[in-house]
């Protein structure tokens, strides 16, 4: 039976293999390459998207579980490229990306994290942000999280 859900606000149905992880649907069927494959076992966070507002690792979410779900990917985070989400803006301001491969996942994790923890301490960040960055941009990620939190608090 076909499964219905939304991706970035657009309704979609799926009637393929229910075991397939959401990651592959996004990348290979929905044409949304911003969500990245890093490990396939829920360890790295490169594949982080929002599922009903929560950050999830899409490599570990089977398609069969998505009936009625609302999914947001990095492509759907901002209204447009000229009006970025404050977290994306903070990432640019702090010049976080090196290779950039992990950063969509980092940004999606941070957006969800800041919803629950709008004014995070270093300890909050240590506990709440667990995505891997192979380029080691953690120092700038930390600064960008704080910058984003400040700018979101100000608006």
């Amino acid at each position, binding site marked *: 039976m076909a499964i219905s859900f939304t991706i970035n606000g657009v309704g979609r149905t799926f009637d393929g*293999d229910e*075991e*397939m992880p959401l990651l*592959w649907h996004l990348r*290979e*069927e929905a*044409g*949304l*390459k*911003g*969500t*990245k*494959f*890093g*490990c*396939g*076992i829920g*360890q*790295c966070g*490169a594949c982080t998207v929002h599922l009903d507002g929560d950050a999830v690792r899409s490599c570990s979410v089977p398609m069969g579980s998505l009936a009625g779900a609302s999914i947001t*990917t*990095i*492509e759907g*985070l*901002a209204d447009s*490229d000229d009006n*970025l989400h404050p977290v*994306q803006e903070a*990432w*640019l301001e702090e*010049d976080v*990306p*090196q*290779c*950039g*491969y*992990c*950063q*969509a996942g980092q*940004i999606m994790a941070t957006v969800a994290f800041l919803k629950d923890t709008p004014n995070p301490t*270093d300890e909050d*960040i*240590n*506990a709440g*942000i*667990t*995505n*891997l*960055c*192979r*380029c*080691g*941009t*953690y*120092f*700038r*990620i*930390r600064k960008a999280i704080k910058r984003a939190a400040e700018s979101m608090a100000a608006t």
Partner: protein
Amino acid sequence: MNSLSRRLFLKSSAATATLAIALSSTPFVLAQDDEAEGGHVTPCLRIGTDGRITLCVPIPDMGQGMETTAAQMIAEELNVRLEDVDVELMPFLGRVNDEGRAVFGRFYQGGGGSGSTMRIWTEVRRTAAYARTLLLEAAARQWQVPRSTLTAVNGEVIETATGRALPYSELIEGTRFIGDEVKENSVDPKPVDRHAVIGKDARNVHGKAIVTGKPIFGIDAEVPDMVHAAIRRCPHLNGSVQRFDDSAARQVAGVLDVVEMQRIPEDLSTYRTVAAGVAVIARDLWSAKKAAALLEIEWDGSVSQEDDTDLLRQKCLNALDDGEFNTSIEGGDLDAAFDAAAQTVEATYFHPHWAHTCIEPHSCIARVTDDAAEIWVAHQFMDAAINGVTNAVGISPDKVTAHYYRMGTGFGRKFEEDYVMEAAILSKATGQTVKVTWSREDEMEQDYVNSLVAYRVRAAVDSDGDITAWHMKAAGDTVPAIVTREYPARLVDTYKGEFLQVPNGVSRGAWRGPHHNVAGWVIQSFLDEVAAETGQDRLEALLKLYGRKESLKSVNWPYRDTFFERYRAVLEKAASEADFGKQMSVGRGQGIAVHHTFVSVCAHVVEVEMIGQNDYRVRKVTSAIDCGLAVNPLGVRAQVESGIMDGLCAAKYGKWILDKGLVTSNNFDTYRKMRIDEAPTDVDVHIVDFGDAEPRGTGEVSLPPVIPALTNAIFAASGKRIRSLPISENL
């Protein structure tokens, strides 16, 4: 995707190249110019029909920031602001050499050895200066005025006196006819004191594409009608397929074919280039992966039984006692110096293999026909990617069209050809356009790892605490000669370096700062031991050692002169900024170290806090680097920060495990990487300016000294000397 968006997609960041084009074109008019894309004025500048300016850079980016750095060089000469232009990779502009190999032409087009910036420094700026001159000359002719009355700024040629302007886009045609009069290389790039872009902070030029999730990486590439391959590669280091049953795999919907992959070379006693395996070809990636998992394969792993982490470790340690070593370097009378010593210090060090763990698993799309090939790939070296196709299926490099993409890290691994070869082989075998996508397990099991080495270091010390003789022996699964030749050999006049390679079948490769990444640790940790044993101040001892001579010509690649004033300067800078030697509370300590990697030198002070007996956190890292002229200080700091994290992580957790030829650490659950919770919250990077007019290198330079600065800090904090890595198992 419809065909239009597919086309846009492909164009998003890929650079397209055929050697044939590069060979046939005049230097400043590329045959790939077409109406839709506007025109090139030199390979460094493309102007769209809409007037949009695109700077074309020669070296692919893997996070080291080369595209931004090269764009700064071009922007400098064209007087444009990076915010106003686009940046893309230029095509491969190489040629075929006499051996039938693709080699670089006008530009160096590879990322490695921390040398990309300096290797394109002259050529890229000259080319961009030439582009500017061509545009000025075209406008001068159109207006019938002397060129000297015109300037080129922000995409326009402006007549200074009248203010009238012509956009570059209207001048392209004019530049086509003046090549003979305006000679290439006749215009010198700007001198340092006129730089407005070079030497200023520039953010990642692809930052916005990255934070909005644009498909710019190799793994994002798609071409119409491609099929997907998932390969089950032999999990044994050097093994083969005995037999396989693909009946269940073929039942999976979407599966088109199953192809056995031959090991290259076939002789299992030689190092692996392409692994033996079985490939499933399917319409979509998921079906290919799912079917590949259903293959029943019987492997023969008998050849690799002795390739075992514990066994190799033991072999290397034993060799230190009784192996037949080769002498790499020797000076003075070593035995006499040790006999005469007031004190001698000796220690044995060891480190296991490290995996690259490139965050983007490798992938490649190949379309091979009878007499031509096309690839879409993220690769560190443009020439090597093309040669991979030639090596795999015999198509001459001048018949290979290559499209290059951004890399989700490389670290030396995306310098190898295997993932290109597999795609070419499968395309040829199936007659299809094939995309091969690696899993994380593939990436780690088939890695070309950093070497495993054991060291014995000895120093003779006189009554002043000065080292009078230096003796370094290294036994590893590589040829560990570099560490044995490194300073302080020759700074100390009596020295000996010896190395030995134990027989093994491990594929080893370049890993960020090859050889130096561990040489820096062993040497700088041991110097710290000597200072501690002889009761000297650690910083003073280093300053004294590196004050013995003013310069020496390095005997390690790239054989440059080393100026020890710079060692001392970065040490002093890092020490003073970190307040090295300050009073620390119990359980806290500072460590200091310096190392020269290829062309640049870097020092760090690391501060750690012990957590119980067996763990610690790095609280602060203070760094000083001399990398020559810093083209992009913001990028240099990023690379120093990155090398620090990479070093801290590899030292603490890096251990790629072979269990009788089987790789058992093949994903992030079994190969631990640091996360933000263990990253220092305070990283303070200083670029020491010696007034150089030319850049050198940065990407790998900060890593080697950070590991000894860390282990020296752990010693200061806990009294425990780390002589075996990873630290997590040896503290």
